[in-house]
């Protein structure tokens, strides 16, 4: 609706707005001073969806041709968008931009252009675009057309739009580990997606050891069986096979992993690094690769200018053998994971496994200095989980979740 803002209301260019318009939907006609938040709050009693949001905006648009108070209305709408769940919806933003009266704020001569024509409305437009940018919503051609109609070409909102359109495409695909916008809802799918992400190996295979379900036992209690999803790659299987059975392996966790806003936790199975004297350098097997020699015995010198590695000592934190994700991180579930892993790695039957489960900011535990003194002798016997009795019963010592010793938060 194009109409000059400043024309006199006397000339009947259009019909006067019928007064019972605002009484639709049974909402009371309030003549007191109310903020526009009220409109949204009145709808708040119903289900907050995009449809209701659009309805409120329509209500405002129809109420007044001159759109009195549209700046406050738009600010209120922007604030309420997250509650209605429409903050990432471009159509809603375009509809909200539509609230501005068109062609009124476009500067018509050089003086108006010089003096920041209609500063409050321009600021409101900029804030709207800033909220779009905040939520990562890419504007489209409709937004541009609306902005040109409302503010003209050299306005601040138009400049902001141009900046968004310049920088967003450049930054959109920068993530070398992209996360899809819609994460899978199913916890097993989410676990397998995140495990493939952290595995760092394309050949790693995801195995689901247990699917989640809720059981009702005879006594009527509900027991939720958590899902257990594990991942292991062939090189990890090889490394585990070469692991010395007298050295323990550790199950550590839970480590946090963030996918956009969602935090999932994973556990790892690792061992301490082999001390230097026990390291065995296996000679390269020349038949492993017949295309080219894997080891060259040349006497070439590298100059200072060809040095390609950093002058830092290599951190050896010990190999990581497998990773898993489960919703319940207690020892019983993790034991199930280990027994599931045992099918592919028989050496786990002889190797002692230590559990180090604690909450708090997590780092891979270092070497032996972190052994805690909380060994419960007879208590752990009752809580010990025995593996299948065919293998040699191994010692599964339990370290109870260590109280923070001033290092964690």
């Amino acid at each position, binding site marked *: 609706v194009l109409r000059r803002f400043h024309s006199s209301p006397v000339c009947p260019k259009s019909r006067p707005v019928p007064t019972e318009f605002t009484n639709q939907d049974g909402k009371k006609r309030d003549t007191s001073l109310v903020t526009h938040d009220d409109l949204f709050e009145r709808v708040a009693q119903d289900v907050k969806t995009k449809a209701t949001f659009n309805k409120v905006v329509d209500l405002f648009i129809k109420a007044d041709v001159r759109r009195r108070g549209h700046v406050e209305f738009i600010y209120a709408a922007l604030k309420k968008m997250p509650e209605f769940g429409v903050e990432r919806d471009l159509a809603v933003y375009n509809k909200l931009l539509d609230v501005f009266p068109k062609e009124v704020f476009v500067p018509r001569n050089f003086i108006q252009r010089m003096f920041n024509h209609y500063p409050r409305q321009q600021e409101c437009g900029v804030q709207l675009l800033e909220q779009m940018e905040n939520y990562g919503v890419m504007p489209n051609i409709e937004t541009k057309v609306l902005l040109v109609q409302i503010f003209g070409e050299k306005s601040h909102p138009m400049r902001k739009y141009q*900046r968004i359109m310049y920088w967003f495409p450049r*930054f959109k695909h920068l993530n070398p580990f992209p996360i899809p916008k819609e994460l899978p809802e199913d916890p097993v799918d989410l676990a397998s997606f*995140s495990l493939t*992400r952290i595995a760092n190996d394309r050949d790693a295979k995801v195995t689901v050891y247990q699917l989640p379900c809720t059981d009702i036992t005879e006594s009527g209690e509900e027991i939720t069986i958590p899902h257990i999803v594990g991942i292991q790659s062939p090189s990890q299987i090889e490394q585990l096979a070469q692991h010395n059975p007298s050295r323990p392996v550790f199950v550590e966790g839970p480590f946090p992993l963030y996918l956009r806003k969602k935090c999932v936790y994973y556990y790892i199975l690792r061992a301490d690094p082999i001390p230097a004297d026990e390291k065995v350098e296996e000679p390269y097997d020349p038949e492993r690769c017949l295309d080219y020699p894997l080891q060259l015995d040349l006497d070439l010198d590298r100059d200072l200018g060809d*040095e390609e590695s950093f002058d*830092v000592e290599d951190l050896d934190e010990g190999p990581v053998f497998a990773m898993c994700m489960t919703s319940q991180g207690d020892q019983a579930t993790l034991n199930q994971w280990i027994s599931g892993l045992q099918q592919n790695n028989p050496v786990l039957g002889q190797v002692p496994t230590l559990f180090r489960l604690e909450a708090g*900011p997590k780092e891979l535990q270092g070497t032996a200095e972190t052994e805690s003194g909380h060994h419960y002798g007879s208590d752990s016997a009752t809580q010990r989980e025995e593996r299948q009795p065919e293998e040699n019963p191994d010692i599964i010592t339990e370290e109870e979740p260590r109280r923070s010793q001033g290092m964690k938060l």
Partner: protein
Amino acid sequence: MSLPKITHLPSARLLTSFHQHRQQLLHPSIAPLPAPRRAVIQGQYRRPGQPKENKYPWQKINFNFLKGVEGIKKNFMLLKKEFFDPWVGPEGKPVLEHMLEQNRVVWEFRGPESLEQWTVSSDREIGGQSEVYLKVGKNNNTGFLYGTLSSTPPRDGETRYSGYCTMRSRQLMASFNRKKHHDWTSFNTLHLRVRGDGRPWMITIGTETYFSHQKDDMYNYFLYTRGGPYWQDVKIPFSKFFLTHRGRIQDNQHPIWLDKVNTIGFTLGDKADGPFQLEIDYIGVCKDYAHTEEFAYELYKRNPEV
């Protein structure tokens, strides 16, 4: 035609929905800095609600004997180093090594004394509830930055967005508190070895500037972590860093000048509330001969006058 001054200073926004921190150096004990009385161009951030300090400049000097003795010791050690280093070669390294260096480790976290080169800061200065701590990792071999992010804005009527945590390196000092700069002209890539938790961070490099308007100029780029127990090698060429001022990306871009680099920093401002952690092994610069790009963004004037 300039937009009237909008007082939402700490709600600095970057065009990719990250929050950028205000560049303030703080001691790790996170005590709020009092605002100076005379600030010419918005010198220090004045937290809304805090009264202006009415102290004269000479009243702010703190005389302390022990501090003086320590200062003398430190400065003379540095002076000695500066005197004897040129005998070995430029910047304390033999000439050939200085000229032909391909990789240089600038910061590495081995032992607690490496933590003194860094300072952490968070939302708390403007009244938010994020916490951030820096400690040495296990076996004294890594730096571990951890804390909690909370994006509830402080209720001071001015701030609209909140929730950031940063870690920033301190300015290099020569003897007697003179500023020293990093000279990275012979390198073109930043190489980091980090282990994050999947959150996207922002790396900020601050260079030495001449004009006071350029005080908050930073060159930024993203650090996407993968998460997981494996270390991640991140190589970012310096041509990718874009110019921002107080967290807002600028229209007139130019490649970063590497001859006087002051500080490097890591910021977290993704709006995911909750605990975070980042482990850093080392930060180095290297020369990648395969990278020939001079600058990743266009250099032409983007806002020509009407």
